[in-house]
């Protein structure tokens, strides 16, 4: 019985971790590559969830489809956000204090507007596969976990290919390492960063849809994800996609085991505790060199 419970927790943790990778992916680009501490990233994920909820309720569209359809809008918004951030803070070298407080303020505003518009009730989406479960022996896999896992894997793979194969993608990886060299290659760092933040915010449209497929969402849920996603990005070695996936799976599994054996009320502390331990002992990440 103990073993069955344990294996089920591990499988659930892997599915959860795959989803966490999708949530952390955008932050891995912004925080890891661009050095923009977008603490409001989870808040954008929540906007993605509410978009899925609204479109699902009014038009009955599939939440995942909504997520994909809305990526261009989120992309454009992310580009605009970078413009604003660049003009207000980065150009004048104020990003460390003011930039941080700026994103904190944005996060708070998003949360309050969602509360004003939709209240603090939990919202959910409807789709045929939510609620179905498949069984392999004693291991059961609910579709509301499996679908987000597969979608997350697809999105992470696509972003990985884009970053490693295309010119713009490689420029994004380069912009943080050597700005001058990038300029010599004929790429405008500001434009590259603009596209990068666009992509990062675009991922939140899909990640948000996945979040609301997994379970009901209310505006303050985003805050719990701050610890998780920052833990994942820092553990994963700041900006490495493979590191992000590994760290996400790890945190997913640990959280799932803790929730199974000690009760779900302890689960939120897992991500944050791992984050604190990482900062204290391995700030360069699991695979990074000191």
């Amino acid at each position, binding site marked *: 019985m103990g073993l069955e419970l344990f294996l089920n927790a591990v499988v659930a943790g892997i599915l959860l971790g795959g989803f966490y990778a999708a949530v952390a992916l955008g932050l891995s680009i912004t925080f890891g590559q661009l050095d923009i*501490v977008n*603490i409001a990233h989870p808040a954008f994920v929540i906007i993605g969830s509410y978009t899925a909820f609204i479109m699902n309720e009014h038009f009955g569209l599939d939440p995942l489809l909504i997520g994909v359809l809305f990526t261009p809008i989120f992309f454009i918004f992310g580009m605009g956000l970078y413009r*604003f951030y660049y003009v*207000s*803070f980065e150009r004048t070298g*104020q990003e*460390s*204090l*003011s930039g*941080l*407080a*700026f994103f*904190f*303020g*944005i996060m*708070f*505003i998003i*949360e*309050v*507007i969602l*509360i*004003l518009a939709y209240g603090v009730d939990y919202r959910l989406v409807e789709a045929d596969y939510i609620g179905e479960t498949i069984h392999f022996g004693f291991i059961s896999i609910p579709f509301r976990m499996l679908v987000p896992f597969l979608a997350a894997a697809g999105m992470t793979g696509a972003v990985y290919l884009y970053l490693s194969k295309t010119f713009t993608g490689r420029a994004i990886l380069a912009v943080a390492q050597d700005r001058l060299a990038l300029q010599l290659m004929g790429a405008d760092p500001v434009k590259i960063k603009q596209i990068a933040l666009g992509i990062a915010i675009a991922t939140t449209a899909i990640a948000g849809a996945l979040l609301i497929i997994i379970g009901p969402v209310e505006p*303050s849920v985003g*805050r*719990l994800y*701050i*610890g998780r996603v*920052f*833990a994942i990005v*820092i553990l994963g070695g700041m900006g490495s996609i493979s590191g992000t996936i590994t760290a996400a799976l790890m945190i997913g599994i640990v959280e799932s085991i803790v929730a199974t054996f000690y009760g779900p*009320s*302890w689960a*939120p*502390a897992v991500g*944050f*505790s791992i*984050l*604190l331990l990482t*900062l*204290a002992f391995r*700030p360069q990440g699991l695979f990074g060199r000191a």
Partner: protein
Amino acid sequence: MKAPLLTFWPCAIAIFAAGFIFTLIADNEFYFFASYVVLQAVIMATAWNILGGFTGYVNFGSAGFFAVGAYTTIALNKAFGLPLPFLILAAAICSGIVGLAAGYLTLRLKGVYFAIATLAMSIVFETIANNWEYVGGASGAYILTPDDSLFFDSYIELLFMLILTLAIGSAAVARYMSSSRMGRGLAAIRDDEVAAECNGVPTLKLKLISASVMGAMMGVAGAPYPFFVTYVDPVSAFNLLIAVNAIAMPMIGGTASWIGPIIGALLVGGAQEIITVTISSEMNLLVVGVMLVAFITLAPKGIVGLYQDYRKKRRRQ
């Protein structure tokens, strides 16, 4: 902005006396409740600014430090029934240690890690409070206010005078820290940490002292809170608004001097009380958020900075 020693203390005593007279003449208890909230914000903003404004390290977890203070009061009050001054002292020590620990773990790293660590700490503490049955767990704890309110008409008047005293004390500490030799070291850290270290400023030591003082001060602000609200649960003690206010008020008032956070706290805190009563508490949250973002982008030096620019312009004319 440096008020000479001769004018700071007379002003402080005058404010204290004015507060005392206020307790004698005002009848409506609402004024004391509202003033308490604003003065608590003054302490929180002043505390935040000691690290955030003077050295440039952002603390996102102010609510966590505040709640550690509040929960120290609840736990010690339940266990031993200590009098309030001891509870405040104990809360200061506990939150100070938390500040020191957070600083020790992350202040050697880049500033953002400290910011994220404080946020993480706040959530870890909230989870612990949610699961700690002795102090009420997720459902919260009730605190009985003592019957004895000294020579004041009611207990809220006592609390009002207490928080006024603590606020003046916090301002004195912040003022001392900014105008002393230590303050110059802190300012050097904010401007260029590497250069400061090279010039012999003991950066880590100064940052750790600031982090401890910040934590202790926030604990002090949280310590009387259970007696003020008489019912504390994790949602209220760890409220995000506390953390947002602690950042927004110094940013709006101006982070460079000790007076900035006080101006910010009085203005924003006062406006919040009015908006909460006249419109709604959600609208009050939105106003703080928008003001924070507006000031950061348009007037990064805050109200004090705007005033200084204005004076400079006039002098030139």
